[in-house]
């Protein structure tokens, strides 16, 4: 697996998120705890809401448009809503956030 450095851990507040632009669309990077990050699609499958703007609680995020809640580990919508967001591998090294380089090449593959 090839990893790409996308920024410093401290660039994202705890229980906050930032987005990363890729040619496949935006990826949201969530920091749920001091040293825990998740990467998922930034787009809510319901009406396309930007998930990076949602409230992060536990390992979940709530879409800012219509309050759909997604589990950041599985990508599954919670409760009675049905849908799933893509999730991507990440890791933290020396205070930097790394993301699986595969997100760059999915379309080409």
């Amino acid at each position, binding site marked *: 697996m090839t990893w790409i450095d996308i920024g410093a851990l401290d660039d994202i507040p705890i229980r906050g998120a930032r987005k990363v632009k890729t040619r496949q669309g935006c990826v949201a990077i969530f920091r749920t705890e001091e040293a825990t990050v998740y990467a998922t699609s930034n787009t809510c499958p319901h009406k396309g809401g930007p998930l990076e703007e949602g409230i992060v609680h536990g*390992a979940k995020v709530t879409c800012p448009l219509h309050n759909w809640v997604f589990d950041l*580990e599985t990508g599954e919508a919670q409760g009675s809503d049905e849908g799933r967001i893509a999730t991507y591998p990440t890791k933290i090294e020396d205070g930097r956030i790394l993301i699986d380089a595969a997100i760059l090449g999915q379309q080409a593959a």
Partner: protein
Amino acid sequence: MKKLVIIGAGMAAGRLVEHVSEAGGWEITLFNAEPRGTYNRIMLSPVLSGEKTYQEIVTHNDDFYATHSVTCRFGERVTAIDRAARTVTGENGTVSYDKLVIATGSDPFMIPLPGHDLSGVIAYRDLEDTERMMTLGEGAKAVVIGGGLLGLEAAAGMHARGVDVTVVHLMGHLMERQLDEAAGYLLRKELIGRGIKVLCSSNSKEILGEDGKVKALRLENGTELPCDLLVMAVGIRPATAVAKEAGLAVGRGIHVDDQMITSDEDILAIGECVEHDGALFGLVAPLYDQAKVAAQTIAGEDARFVNRETSTKLKVTGCDLFSAGDFAEGDDREDIVFRDPSRGVYKRLVLQDNTLIGAVMYGDTADGGWFHGLIKDKIDISDMRETLIFGPAYQGGAALDPMAAVAALPADAEICGCNGVCKGQIVTAIEGGAADLGAVQATTKASSSCGTCTGLVEQLLAVTLGDAFELPTAKPVCGCTDLTHEDVRRLIKSRELKSQAAVWQELGWKTPNGCHVCRPAINYYLLADWPVEYQDDPQSRFVNERKHANIQKDGTFSVVPRMWGGITNAAELRAIADAADKYNVPTVKVTGGQRIDLLGVKGEDLPAMWADLGRAGLVSGHAYAKGLRTVKTCVGTDHCRFGTQDSTGLGVKLEKKLWGSWTPHKVKMAVSGCPRNCAEATCKDVGIVCVDSGYEIGVGGAAGMDLKEIEPLVKVATEDEAMEWVIAFVQLYRENAKYLDRPYKWIAKVGLDWVQDTMSSAEERTRLVAAFELSQTIYQKDPWAERAEEEEARKFAPLADLTLEAAE
């Protein structure tokens, strides 16, 4: 005999000397910059607090070195290593070696704040530092920067000697590497309870001195903490200078292989100065392993250092806490959380694939060893999962009492703020025969005024009467708690809960940090009730209030600058038009609140647009906020032939006074200059209609999902009185309403009579206005100007743009 030179006499070196002299065959020279041999550095904290003496923690004394023929060169710094000549030069001369071991340990990291070189600014590393702290007399003041293990031990130790100690910690909670937020909160509470001041999320700015001696620490927010001694305990760095100068391979630490050999085969390194396989070391167990491996390598034996999994059982004198393994949230991980607010107990277990991988505990750590065993041995816990958190002794038991929070209240805790009724009085009344809410109201007056404590009174009935009382089902805030909004508000005040962590812990929240429903509410309650102590948390706000703009259905934002009382001018309009052009704003709309809305702005353009608008004097209109929106006005006596008062002037004054304040829901106001009511004041949250004889103030209007006409609150004669009443009303609403209740909904619950009764007291109005003004000193700041600054503006841009990166 061959010659072994060791640089450094710390704990790793001490162990190495033992191993090598045991095996024999080497003539040892031991350098130490400290003027003494090896002692147990870990035990400096008990020395500081007075529980032990230095003599008790010495591990190698003069006798030991004499018996083992170790040449001691203590108090002597090594200045150079000559690898070609195989010599080590100290301040008092040169010695040759066959093998050299570098064990220089680590240096405390000193933050290069202005004034860090003043006398009285020290680290916490060695005996000298400890002794320096011990010289402080009773009543002296000390500041400790750093709320990690070492900093807290220094603080606790000095406090035990009667020193007035303040801990300043950069992060949001103490010991953030070892503890999660909830355990950090309990630790902080314990330390504060002992009398140690603890400031979290506090950034140090400079150290102030007088005559070359430390006098105070100034924080970023301007606070000055006077001190006679300042201790920096913010971390350590491997001490690699000597190795680096000698040309050895050095990364973060001195690179060593599995045999502890550096890039020079005759030089080894052990301890906190080394980097092995990317890892640095701070705990003593692996250092002892390294010493053993190094001794074997020197003896020509085959040995390998393996960095074993270490548990971090921690001890801050008198605080019972335990942390082991990995307790971060992560892929496929699950939490089991147990909180017992009355006993101050918190336990959290982290599970992965049916095994325990991490545990944090506070208050009751008796089962720590057992949990650590489960982590180390990777035991499958699926069979005991249900009862795991109760520990090895658990044999079945009752579920946690959802009313524990109320049951735990002391008898003198105030339940009914309106009538000043304590828990004890209510319980006495219930025991005396008051068996339902009405009876309690009649006997004690509790819950007979504003009614927000009704839920608590009912819970007291349930707790006191047991099954004999049937609790009416009140709607809890959300799935994270059984408490209602009113209960939570009341408990935040009566139990003085001043942080989110305090709310989660003391009120027994079922989730680690709430959800999108409760967290914004809790954030509001905390900042409304404790404006000075609590710090607003942007991550607990809905996107609009975090971004200070309204999100639209396509993810773009709308921008509405403030127009005081609906008054603008050519320069402002020009700036708005320029911004609309520059940022390709597709829609420009005039709002119902008498201002201009720029719709369709891209999120990343917001800071630049705000900066442009700010240059023309425009500030945020808070069109996105649960706060004051606009004060709509008509032109009043300025121009209108019917106007009775300066309605525009009053509107502008009100808006200037009230803007920036957070309220339970949005607040819209209007001032009409005469009963013709051109400003439509009679359907606002607060509406003022001017008449010849003064100002008629009405409250609780609405023109949204519900249509409501305002109800008359009061009629006053002067503009000053009108200002006072409106401000006091807003503050009363801020202090009492449920989050997301507009004033009309809140008034329907508490009754207009109660509002009028409360506000009829001049004393209460003065208190309300003062409380509001205090809050405004903190919150009346233009959020746009703050976020247009470079540092903040960066946060609106994507973290990274990978659209130009080539795929593999």
